[in-house]
């Protein structure tokens, strides 16, 4: 079994080699550009491919040197069209036996006929390929870096002619390899042209030069996107940032840093982060609170945040912060019935020429989202889904977790997440609150309405009874006083109309009502007495006073009768009326004071 397997493996690999060699492709003309002006190694190669074989070719192979391959962050290939229209090609990683390095197979959109030519542009970005040398510098020194690469294009195909152009960050170059007498202008070195280079040829290129561009690396970033169907998408990024240039050796002097412009030239004071144009409520903080050194600028097509860490970043120094903002969901969330699709950037801009060593994306979907499916623009590792609980969640929101290492600016692309969500579920949380308040109020109602005491307090009961009786007495007494006033009116009317019948009927009603009221009060007084309250005496006193009052009223009534009948003179009547009124008022005030005492 084993030998058969081995044999087949050998066979397959032989076939493979044959297929690579046999497709007869040749790099006719290669223009390489090494852009080393930032802390990234950006290598672009424009290749003119020629098919010198006999058959049509459907794909070709891209190769990366084994030294550079582990640092590869991004690779993209496109075909240069006639009208400057680039068409990006799909790349698939593969291995070539007997060769170390990384290889990608690019599928051509249309096969290349024998003898035909094609212009291809290959873009690669390498992170951490510029090594600071010396690795430690003082604050006053400038940062020098070394790049080690290949003079030639690393390719499985023979190359007819090629040039290599290196763009540097500054004019200061310590050393550089001088293969084929390169010409050096201000910030560039031109190698070549090299003629007829065999496949897989390598020749070590080494450039040692000054590079003070910010060597910032995001050692880890966690991007949390929380979707709410109430119209908001909250984004928060937790960033661990590190200056990966030459380490600061010796002291950091604030004086020099403030007074000399070229002190700490390779340090990073601030950088710009570009947020989506609709970003609102931006915050920038860390564990110990808001970071007060930042500026926000709202532009037409974006929101620019100037992020200034709390302290300038020197080589080897780290910082850590959180930045977050809200986005309106209508720009990113699409739906068809119960089917939803969220289209967001998987990773966003942090600073220009960014390098992310480790990215974790957490997508928090609404509670109750089902059939979740994620479409990523490039392969990304999915971890176990988690559950997230926030306000009023009962069974948790699904969280999609994905991680990826070594990302650069070219990875800022959209991810699409499809899921199903029943809209009824949106009502769940408001209903929960309503229910909770309902239960609360209901309990209060029950508690207030029902008596839960385990012992009976007779004293309190008596007190309450007495209070209710007193209340009744109060109303009755007041009613009785009202009767007298009514009687006064009747008498006055009688004085004008001299209608004895009306007076008599008024008197009768007064008598009748007065009797019932007095009886009621007496009954209440008896009840008070029965309860053992000393208020009964006061009520008795009121009754006594009332009797006098009643007498006065009837007397004033009689006086009025006599006046009408002409038995008394008007002056005498007015006098007697005055005394009567005075007495009445005195009585009323005494009753009132007694009532107050009740």
């Amino acid at each position, binding site marked *: 079994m084993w030998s058969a397997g081995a044999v087949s493996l050998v066979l397959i690999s032989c076939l493979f080699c044959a297929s690579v060699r046999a497709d007869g492709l040749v790099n006719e003309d290669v223009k390489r550009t090494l852009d080393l002006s930032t802390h990234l190694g950006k290598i672009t190669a424009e290749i003119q491919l020629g098919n010198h074989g006999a058959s049509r070719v459907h794909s070709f192979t891209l190769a990366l040197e084994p030294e550079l391959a582990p640092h590869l962050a991004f690779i993209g290939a496109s075909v240069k069209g006639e009208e400057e229209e680039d068409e990006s090609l799909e790349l698939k990683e593969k291995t070539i036996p007997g060769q170390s390095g990384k290889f990608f197979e690019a599928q051509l959109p249309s096969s290349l006929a024998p003898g035909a030519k094609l212009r291809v542009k290959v873009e690669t970005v390498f992170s951490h390929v510029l090594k600071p040398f010396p690795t430690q510098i003082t604050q006053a020194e400038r940062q020098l870096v070394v790049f080690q690469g290949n003079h030639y294009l690393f390719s499985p195909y023979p190359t007819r002619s090629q040039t290599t152009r290196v763009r540097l960050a500054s004019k200061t170059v310590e050393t550089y390899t001088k293969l084929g007498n390169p010409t050096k202008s201000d910030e560039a070195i031109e190698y070549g042209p090299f003629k007829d280079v065999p496949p897989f040829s390598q020749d070590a290129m080494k450039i040692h030069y000054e590079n003070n561009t910010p060597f910032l690396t995001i050692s880890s970033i966690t991007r949390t996107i929380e979707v709410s169907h109430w119209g908001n998408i909250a984004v928060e990024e937790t960033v661990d940032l590190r200056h990966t240039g030459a380490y600061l050796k010796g002291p950091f002097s*604030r004086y020099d840093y403030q007074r000399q412009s070229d002190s700490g030239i390779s340090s990073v004071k601030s950088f710009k982060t570009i947020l989506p144009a609709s970003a609102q409520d931006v915050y920038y903080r860390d564990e110990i609170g808001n970071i007060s050194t930042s500026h926000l600028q709202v532009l037409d097509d974006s929101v620019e945040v100037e992020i200034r860490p709390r302290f300038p970043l020197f080589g080897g120094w780290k910082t850590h912060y959180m930045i977050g903002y809200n986005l309106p969901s209508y720009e990113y969330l699409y739906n068809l019935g119960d089917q939803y699709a969220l289209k967001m950037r998987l990773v966003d801009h942090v600073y220009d020429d960014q390098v992310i060593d480790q990215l974790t994306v957490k997508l928090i979907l609404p509670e109750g989202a089902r059939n979740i499916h994620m479409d990523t623009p490039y392969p990304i590792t999915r971890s176990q889904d988690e559950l997230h609980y926030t306000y009023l969640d009962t069974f948790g929101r699904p969280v999609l977790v994905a991680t990826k290492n070594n990302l650069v600016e070219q990875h800022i692309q959209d991810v699409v997440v499809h899921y199903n969500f029943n809209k009824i579920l949106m009502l769940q949380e408001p209903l929960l609150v309503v229910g909770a308040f309902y239960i609360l109020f209901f309990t209060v109602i029950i508690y207030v309405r029902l008596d839960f005491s385990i012992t009976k307090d007779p004293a309190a009961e008596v007190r309450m009874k007495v209070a209710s009786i007193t209340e009744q007495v109060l109303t009755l007494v*007041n009613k009785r006083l009202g009767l007298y006033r009514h009687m006064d009116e009747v008498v006055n009317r009688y004085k004008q109309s001299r209608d004895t019948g009306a007076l008599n009927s008024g008197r009768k009603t007064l008598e009748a009502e007065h009797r019932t009221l007095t009886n009621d009060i007496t009954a209440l007084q008896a009840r008070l007495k029965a309860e053992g309250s000393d208020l009964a005496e006061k009520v008795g006193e009121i009754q006594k006073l009332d009797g006098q009052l009643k007498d006065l009223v009837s007397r004033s009534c009689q006086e009025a009768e006599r006046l009408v009948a002409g038995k008394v003179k008007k002056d005498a009547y007015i006098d007697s009326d005055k005394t009567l009124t005075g007495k009445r008022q005195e009585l009323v005030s005494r009753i009132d004071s007694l009532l107050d005492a009740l």
Partner: protein
Amino acid sequence: CVNRFNYRSTHHLSTNGFYEFLNWFDERAWYPLGRIVGGTVYPGLMVTAGLIHYLLNLVHLSVHIRDVCVFLAPVFSGLTVMSTFLLTRELWSRAAGLLSACFMAVVPGYISRSVAGSFDNEAVAIFALQFTFFLWVKAVKTGSVFWTVGCCLSYFYMVSAWGGYVFIINLIPLHVFVLLLMRRFSKRVYIAYSTFYVIGLILSMQIPFVGFQPIRTSEHMAAAGVFVLVQIYSFLQALRERLTRQERQTVFSVALCAAAPLLCVCVVYLNCIGWIAPWSGRFYSLWDTGYAKVHIPIIASVSEHQPTTWVSFFFDLHVLVCTFPAGLWFCIRNISDERVFVVLYAVSAVYFAGVMVRLMLTLTPVVCVLSAVAFSSVFERYLSDDPPAEDDRKNSGSVYEKAGKVRKHVGVCEEGLGSNIKSLVSVLLLLLLLMFTVHCTWVTSNAYSSPSVVLASYNHDGSRNILDDFREAYSWLRLNTGPHTRIMSWWDYGYQIAGMANRTTLVDNNTWNNSHIALVGKAMASNESAAYDIMRLLGVDYVLIVFGGVIGYVGDDINKFLWMVRIAEGEHPGDVRERDFLSPQGEFRVDRSASPALLHSLLYKMSYYRFGEVQLDFRAPPGFDRTRNAEIGNKDVRLEQLEEAFSSEHWLVRIYRVKDPQNRLERNTHTHTHTPSSRKATRRKRGFIKNKLVLKKGRRVNRKQKRTGLD
């Protein structure tokens, strides 16, 4: 500040659970000693916050523990306001209660501790204090065990939250004792006090930090004594009912003669053999304001422990401080059992507030209560309706129907004050109250609303500059030093470093170990090589100092230097002498006439390292210190054993790295030697800071450096 520490412990509590918190040994503080946090804090605050956090999360209100901590103080101030209302209602009337609640809600003396973010023991303790007092008054009024037990539970909460519980456990016995003297002692008081003492004692001993203190320290002996007294008194009362007059007299005299000396001897004996701890120095400092300065400089060095000035009384209480004696008088005039209590509370609180700025906090509630009483009584008299005219009453039927309600104030106004006087007085009082609210708003916004860790300065055009140097430096430490780095700084910054920088500190605001602090003070005061030995001994990696010379920040380390020296001198009188750091005129100054010991001290060197080159202003010479308004005396500072590791943007915080032995230069053999001082010089002589401290506008002088220990 303390908030940081409390937050850190609460965080520990909420992540690791209650028992883990009680057993927490913090190896990050007091290096190399460490600190048993669980047993040396009042856990009430943390447990409250942790409990609220737990409950909220239980019902899926996923609030971060930080938010709970931030908003705890405002929430509890609301509860304080309510319990103030209840207390005043019990003491006087509902109207006064409402007024006192209003005062309590805005008075600056309490706002200072109840703003959002003030996560301090006092935040919950004042509520517990007021509520305990309310329940005590209720218990004395009703004599019911129910209210007393409620009072005990509230007292227990107070004990768990704040060292100020000692105030309660002395005030309540005092109240009972005074009632006894006033012949107002009754069964109700007996029930209330006996229950309170027994249950309160047992409950208070459940707090690990308190432990056996309630029966073994002098501070608690008054309560025990009154308890015994009350029992004896009641026993004699009971006897009196059973015995004849003749028997009674003999029994009384014998009992008095026997019991009193016996009790005294007992207590004194226990005191002598040390079973009862003597009064702590902190306690003495309450009676003798000069005591702390001489014996415990570490207490005297805190600005909050200084005697209160008149200005700060007015600043914190405004008109209330003038009106509360009136309320006190009203209470004394209409005395009753519970008003005796509030009178005692007021008198003692006024005394303590006069001794220490911090204790203004205990004065504030009672001032609110009594001022409310005063205002309410005056308003009742002058703001009441005119007595309803006779004809008015006769004609309108409605008067009769509401008879009980409308005519309440008839009797009060019988003296017949003129309506002009009435309106004049009312308007005047209302104006006073109006001014009070304006003052409260102003004080709150100006003095108590800005965080102490972020400074702000204002430009000429009114725009604001934020000086965030502290956090800049702390976050630098947090991110760019090793996780077990040990940082030496003066103790004021200990909690901040532990909380914000998450690094090990040598000393912090819990100043429990004076000799350790003295060692740090000695290192700061010694010359560089001597200090280096101490720092190697203590395993220091970085030294952090605060230097305000660039921006004129007055609370910096140079201004605290004399205190460092004094504390160091207390422990190492042979090595550090305050006299050496003063100029021949006895002044503390940093310029050319400064003493050589100061010019070569580690702190001076670190503060002014490279400062001599800085020219801040064209009119001033280079190296001009803005805080002390002086050109520094030693402009060419060279450090050999240390190197500058970080300085914040405005030089406020400077951090120095202690070099490893192999990297540094050959050590000078010259170590710290003292010029032989004359007899006159050895005499203790206080120094003073040359330029008086001035409060910079919009900036708070460090007013919150305190320890969590007692108080």
